């Protein structure tokens, strides 16, 4: 919404000399428009609720907090798909952190919380996928590539030796 407003206002802002470079005029117009628009944008942002109780608050028990943090580092943020929920500033990631902390605090193990989420979102939600028929290449490919690398390396080293007479 704010962006649309900026475009409209900068298009209609009067009073710029035609001799001023176009880029400079645009920068001035945009920043003037932004200063007009930004106060209007605040109420929209204020509509969003405050973060969930344990989104950014640690558990008082350090052992449980450590367990929750370790788990959160391996859970995918669903709206910002490249990030773990522990790193993400998205509202939904905050809600997921709060959920994880509250479940751990209530006595569930990290594996139980992970399984609860996998039952809802599939393996996609975890960065530590369980071994299955679908994920077996993930586990075996690195070993296969390592074996290939060793084979290529050993073959090249052999070739470098001076030929025997």
């Amino acid at each position: 919404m704010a962006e649309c407003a900026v475009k409209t206002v900068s298009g209609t802002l009067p009073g710029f000399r035609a001799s001023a470079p176009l880029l400079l005029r645009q920068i001035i117009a945009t920043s003037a428009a932004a200063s007009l628009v930004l106060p209007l944008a605040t109420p929209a942002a204020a509509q969003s609720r405050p973060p969930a109780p344990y989104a950014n608050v640690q558990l008082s028990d350090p052992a449980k907090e450590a367990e929750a943090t370790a788990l959160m580092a391996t859970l995918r943020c669903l709206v910002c798909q490249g990030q773990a929920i522990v790193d993400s500033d998205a509202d939904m990631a905050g809600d997921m952190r709060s959920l994880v902390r509250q479940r751990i605090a209530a006595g569930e193990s990290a594996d139980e919380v992970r399984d609860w989420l996998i039952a809802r979102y599939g393996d996609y939600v975890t960065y530590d996928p369980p071994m299955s028929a679908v994920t077996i290449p993930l586990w075996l490919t690195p070993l296969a590539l390592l074996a290939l690398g060793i084979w290529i390396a050993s073959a090249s080293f052999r070739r470098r030796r001076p030929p025997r007479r």
Partner: protein
Amino acid sequence: MRRWLLWLPLVLFALVVVFAVRELRKPSDRTVYSAMVGKPVPDFTLPPILSGRPGLSAADLKVGQPRLLNIFASWCVPCIAEAPQLMKLKAMGIPIDAVAIRDSEPAIAQFLKRHGDPYARIGDDRDSRVQLSLGSSGVPETFVIDGRGIIVKQHVGDIRDEDVAALADAWRNAR
């Protein structure tokens, strides 16, 4: 020396190119679908978000008749886009309940006044707890739930005009 081995890196590279081109021409579906389709709605109770209107609990979704469950929010732009389609579904006689994500009473009241109110019940899910328990990964999403409270279909994203028929069919088939 096995000369054919010289070609191996090129073959591997060609393979990578084939995968890259295929993904660029027709990107694979990155949508996160719920794993709860085919399973019963998890137990929950949400307070009403509007005073004088009912809230929503899992029991309200097992009343013998299939219903739509719309996950929405007043701060969500695609939810505005799908509002007319929800009104169409309502006009077809399909009951629609809603879960409002991270929202407030005045914002929801204004949203419904401006874009129409297709909902029988609206639950207040202030920290996305019910959304997460349904396996929903964003707003808007729409679930079709049969009369026994089993989730039979999930629609991710805003309901476009061309999606209305499929949702109405799913609702009819769930009876």
